[in-house]
């Protein structure tokens, strides 16, 4: 994939090498100056964000045991449950949309398009107040709000992935199934779906990154996730900025690892002669695949 980008320029000659050196030095200087300004601003006695008092709490076991890790666990719990329910919902919706029954297909289509248009935060707010005012749930209303908000949106995204996954399979697969006497439904469940889901695995892992990030919205409805745990902790030491930096680092490490897992899965699927998704030039006609690029 990276081959074309390196061909954008020639092997540099002596003049180009000097130019590159100048650009390199200039870029490094600009980055260092920016970094220096930020550090100076944080260290300013008005803010004193770099004092030991604001950072040493991260060395205490209680910080991790009582705030950050329980928060992270809640984040993972909500994200894990959401992705499992979303896969179930997404498969059902995707098949419904591909169904030969026009009414079913139309209903699933409207559902998918509607919930892809509604922001996750709006859906979470609705689900949370729904749990509070309509269902009168005794407990865990924020958890309900987070999971329901995430599941409606992500089911719709996964339904589109399924639809495009099944759509990208050669037509002969279905026909061969029908030829050996399977019904339409059997061909779908036994032949098309397993291939589509396998091809979709890398996208699913990438979707988990999206879900994990979106779980952070749950703090707005009072879910005790990593962000909220961190904030409660920061109230004790008045160190909101250091805490935000630590939380961001935790998210980046987890999500970056997941992205690498997705890439590795994709490569291993391709090695087996299965295409991990439609070829790049089909991206244009494939909103679901491309949607991953922009999903929050």
């Amino acid at each position, binding site marked *: 994939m990276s081959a074309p980008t390196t061909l954008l320029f020639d092997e540099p000659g002596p003049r180009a090498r000097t130019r590159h050196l100048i650009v390199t030095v200039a870029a490094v200087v600009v980055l260092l100056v920016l970094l220096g300004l930020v550090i100076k601003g944080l260290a300013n006695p008005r803010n004193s964000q770099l004092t030991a008092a604001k950072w040493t709490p991260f060395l205490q076991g209680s910080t991790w045991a009582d705030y950050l890790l329980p928060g992270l666990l809640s984040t993972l719990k909500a994200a894990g449950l959401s992705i499992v329910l979303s896969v179930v919902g997404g498969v059902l919706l995707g098949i419904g949309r591909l169904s030969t029954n026009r009414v079913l297909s139309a209903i699933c289509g409207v559902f998918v398009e509607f919930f892809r248009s509604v922001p996750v935060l709006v859906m979470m707010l609705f689900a949370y*107040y729904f749990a509070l005012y309509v269902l009168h749930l005794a407990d865990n209303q924020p958890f309900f709000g987070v999971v329901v908000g995430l599941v409606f949106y992500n089911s719709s995204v996964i339904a589109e992935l399924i639809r495009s996954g099944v759509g990208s399979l050669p037509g002969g697969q279905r026909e061969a199934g029908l030829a050996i006497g399977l019904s339409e439904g059997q061909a779908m469940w036994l032949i098309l779906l397993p291939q589509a889901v396998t091809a979709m695995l890398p996208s699913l892992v990438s979707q988990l990154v999206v879900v994990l990030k979106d779980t952070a919205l749950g703090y707005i409805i009072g879910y005790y996730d990593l962000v909220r745990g961190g904030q409660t902790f920061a109230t004790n030491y008045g160190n909101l900025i250091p805490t935000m930096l630590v939380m961001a680092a935790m998210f980046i490490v987890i999500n970056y690892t997941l*992205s690498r897992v997705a890439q590795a899965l994709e490569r291993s699927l391709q090695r087996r002669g299965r295409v991990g998704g439609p070829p790049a030039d089909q991206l244009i006609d494939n909103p679901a695949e491309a949607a991953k690029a*922009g999903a929050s």
Partner: protein
Amino acid sequence: MGELADLITRYHVLLAFWMTVRLTTISALGALIIGTIVAVCRVSPVGVLRWFGAAYVNVIRNTPLTLIVFFFAFGVLNTLSISLADPHSPTSIADNNFRWGVVALSVYHASFVAESLRSGVNTVPLGQAEAARAIGLSFVPSLTEVILPQAFRGAIAPLGNTLVALTKNSTVVSTIGVAEIAYQMKNMIEFSPHLLYAIFLLVAICFVVLTLPVGAFFTYLSRRVAVQR
């Protein structure tokens, strides 16, 4: 129905809708500019710039937008005291929140714009870059005259999806007190819990109206301007 109309005027829903539109359009412009710069860095011949481009995408894309909004609001505005509005103006708080919200949305979505453009660059055949070099163009002109124009056309569909995502993600800046739709939705529900469904539908329809035509337009555009090969 009358009650809902009351709520709409009481909580300035039209103004909030307009706020969402403004947040989206200005941030889209910002994201396009920053994203293009990052994408150019990623394919440039200078190692440091390539490293910066990759680091930008990996860090920003893996951080929740909520935290990025917080960094600008609490880190840059409140701690480093970098104000984007006249501190003596009677609307300096609202202006600062809006402007830093736009910066946060731009910075976050720029990473997706950069990735979209990179995938667009990948759709440009090798021969194009080779031909550009063969007629003696160096990196910058071959990029701006030959590769990027085609890359943008190839990246229209993912760019459209990024714009749709940006529209929806603009709700996140409600956490720093920008009075857009989700912010007023929360206030309305807490004021009139019995109108929950109507309020949700109202807000949802606002977003359907904003995102569905945009999505359809970009799909149409991507077919229309796709480079014939």
